[in-house]
């Protein structure tokens, strides 16, 4: 999964039109338990990676999430 693909998926999960990778996720209302589950599902289905809900919740930014999922800076 590329960085752009991840950001597109994350915007859909968080129901936002714009998202900066260094924006604080805690400031986004939709970063809730359902979003956490959606992100863990994304990690499994698209990155073949099992990530814990706690680690997803602890991510401060989209950048942190990409590091957690092992998504590199490629287009």
């Amino acid at each position, binding site marked *: 999964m590329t960085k752009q693909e991840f950001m597109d998926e994350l915007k859909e999960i968080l129901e936002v039109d714009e998202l900066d990778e260094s924006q604080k996720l805690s400031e986004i209302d939709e970063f809730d338990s*359902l979003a956490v*589950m959606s992100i863990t599902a994304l990690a*499994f*289905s698209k990155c073949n990676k099992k990530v*814990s809900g706690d680690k997803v919740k602890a991510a401060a930014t989209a950048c942190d999430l990409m590091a957690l999922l092992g998504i590199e800076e490629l287009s």
Partner: protein
Amino acid sequence: MPCRLTKIEYCLPERMRTNRDLGNVFPDFKAEKIEKKIGIVSRHIAADTETALDMAEKVCARLFSHYDRQRIDYLLLCTQSPDYFLPTSACILQDRLQLSRNIGALDFNLGCSGFVYGLSLAKGLIAAGIAEHVLLVTAETYSKYLAPDDKGNMSLFGDAAAAAVIETHDTECIHSFSLGTDGRGFPNLIVANGGSRSPKDGGAGDFLFMDGPEIFNFALEALPPLINDVLRKNNLKKEEVDHFIFHQANRYMLNSLQKLLEIPEEKFYINLHDTGNTVSSTIPIALKQAEADGIIKPGDKVLLAGFGVGYSYGATIITF
């Protein structure tokens, strides 16, 4: 001796908990989002003095309006909400239903996988010649385990009971099983206090805790090999199965599993709109509702898969 699932009934308690009710209690509860993502609008909740055993009695009475109760020679009760630590709730149920005293009766403590495991036990009892007419009952009141401020789990779980008869038949209609257990997952769906390990202490451990993302990860990992194994054991290809009925946990998880397993949408049954997750009763309720809606017909091959608390998981194929 071959056997068949011949009767199913279910009952839901009268009291309702709708998304609107939850919105009235929790101002930040997003009713539309819950309905859209997890597919639940309302759930039925047992009355304060109504137990799983009470619901079990009601559903069995409903079943016995068209089945002779004296034919039952074994009672299996799946519950994680027994009336007492002891005695066995199934023994009490035998008496309340006025079943023959010449029968076996036992409780088994499973949740989401309970109905599939119950079918495996019933099939085993019949195959061994121990019983001919097994009454399998699932009954649960998870609502009573929830903390008063736990809006997340309140939005998911509903209470219910279901009863099914599995009995001898000319041809085998309950086919081979694939079963799994992974106790590493036990902390992820638990009521930690009140049993022998840890007494109640008035804290969070007295209530149900569920790590949703961990359960989700478990399901995504465990289900593909489970489904492949049960198909292999039954010498069937996925395309030869008419319907797939999984434990109705929530629509988001079911949709994810359907995509992951590449099951055609028209064969994958989802219906938890006004029941919520009723734990071990979701599969029998889904079977009964699918039959009532004309979706499942006698002779159809139906793959059933239950998975969750424990972790415990299992699948089988039945000829309906």
